[in-house]
């Protein structure tokens, strides 16, 4: 059976695992942004937290993914279900690019603009909302883009702990020594990463008209 035939015959399962994969990536990215952007903003306000927060995110990223899954497994609520564990780990991996880019993006705002805004009487929230975040958006989105592509990749390993996703095919194919099965997982995953990169790049260009 050719590869294309194999894909067609198993299209239901491929589709289901793709959706599972999207779910893992989507939820993790949502959490990473919801946690990472505020943390990034926080360290622009409190320089003393810079090292601890960026440092922690960096440490998480340095831990090999399979090892991180292993570390989280004994934990009470998180370790109980494979998908919770996977999402926690994936969120952890996505944090560093998001936090760091939020920080860099905001710090990159022209100091003259910031000084004029403060001198005008903008409160800190108004400064953040009207000036800093809009101007930092491009850089933040770039961080989200990098984080998403990384997450799509690491999510394939989630299958090793039973969290599902396209990694299922990859591991199954390795066990069965069947290339078609491996590719049934690898190709959609690769396509997903490319599509995410492309789409987020496009969205970035649309949302951020050259505001330099």
């Amino acid at each position, binding site marked *: 059976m050719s590869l294309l035939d194999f894909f067609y015959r198993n299209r239901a399962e491929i589709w289901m695992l793709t959706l599972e994969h999207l779910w893992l990536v989507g939820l993790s990215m949502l959490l990473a942004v919801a946690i990472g952007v505020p943390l990034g903003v926080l360290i622009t306000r409190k320089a003393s937290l810079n090292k601890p927060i960026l440092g922690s995110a960096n440490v998480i990223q340095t831990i090999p993914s399979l090892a991180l899954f292993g570390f989280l497994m004994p934990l009470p609520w998180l370790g109980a279900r494979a998908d919770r564990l996977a999402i926690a780990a994936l969120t952890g991996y996505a944090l560093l690019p998001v936090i760091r880019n939020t920080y860099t993006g905001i710090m990159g705002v*022209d100091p003259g*603009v*910031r000084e004029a805004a*403060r*001198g*005008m*009487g*903008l409160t800190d929230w108004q400064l953040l909302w*009207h000036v800093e975040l809009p101007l930092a958006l491009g850089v933040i989105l770039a961080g989200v883009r990098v984080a998403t592509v990384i997450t799509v990749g690491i999510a394939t390993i989630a299958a090793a702990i039973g969290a599902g996703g396209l990694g299922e095919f990859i591991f199954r194919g390795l066990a069965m020594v069947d290339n078609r099965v491996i590719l049934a997982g690898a190709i959609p995953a690769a396509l997903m990463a490319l599509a995410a990169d492309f789409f987020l790049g496009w969205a970035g260009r649309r949302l951020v008209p050259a505001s*330099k």
Partner: protein
Amino acid sequence: MIEFRNVRYSADRQRDVLLNLNLKVEVGETLVLVGRSGCGKTTTLKMINRLLDPSEGQILVEGRPVRDWDPIRLRRRIGYVIQEVGLFPHFTIERNIGLLPQLEGWPPERRRQRVDELLQMVSLDPAEFRGRYPRELSGGQRQRVGVARALAADPPILLMDEPFGALDPLTRAEIQRGFLALQKRLRKTIVFVTHDIREALVVGTRIALLEAGKLVGTYSRTAFLNSTDPAVAAYRDVLRTGDGATES
């Protein structure tokens, strides 16, 4: 209107940037702070709108110590114009000027009128400029917008920190003239920082000379030109030899 009482400012424990400053700014006057780079004039300015707080002493605005003011409310009663201008690059000129009125809750129609009014005041055609972005404007135009923005909520006080310093001599002269005409109309209380003595004599009603963090004295234009004080004489010499700007 604005008063400094025994103000001292030191950034780190070592050096006093400003020492024993006692100064009054009267309503409606344009007080120019002149002095070398590093003499403390920008520091003095920034203590008025609490971008900096003094190490010792008191600053009063409209009779109240600035420490008793809510910093946000204080700054909204004071227009602030800086050399870099700092226009918001992602906003049109209209939104730039209208931001403060918007935050103060002005209805859109009133904001629009105010923006047009201000653009005309700084000699920029509203129809042509209100929809443009800062990057499309020349340096002189940008600074005019900066002044318009500072005047948006009609504050009684204006602080200007070397506002025309980045402009070429011709544009600078033009904008100084426009500024004088505007000041005659609006009669704001203005504190203007510059190191250009010639500019000080053009725009100021009174000149305060600062040297190494100390106030040497305040002078009317004629008094400045006739003073026997050696510090003042040094500035007059510069005027005579030509270029009024000590460095650019």
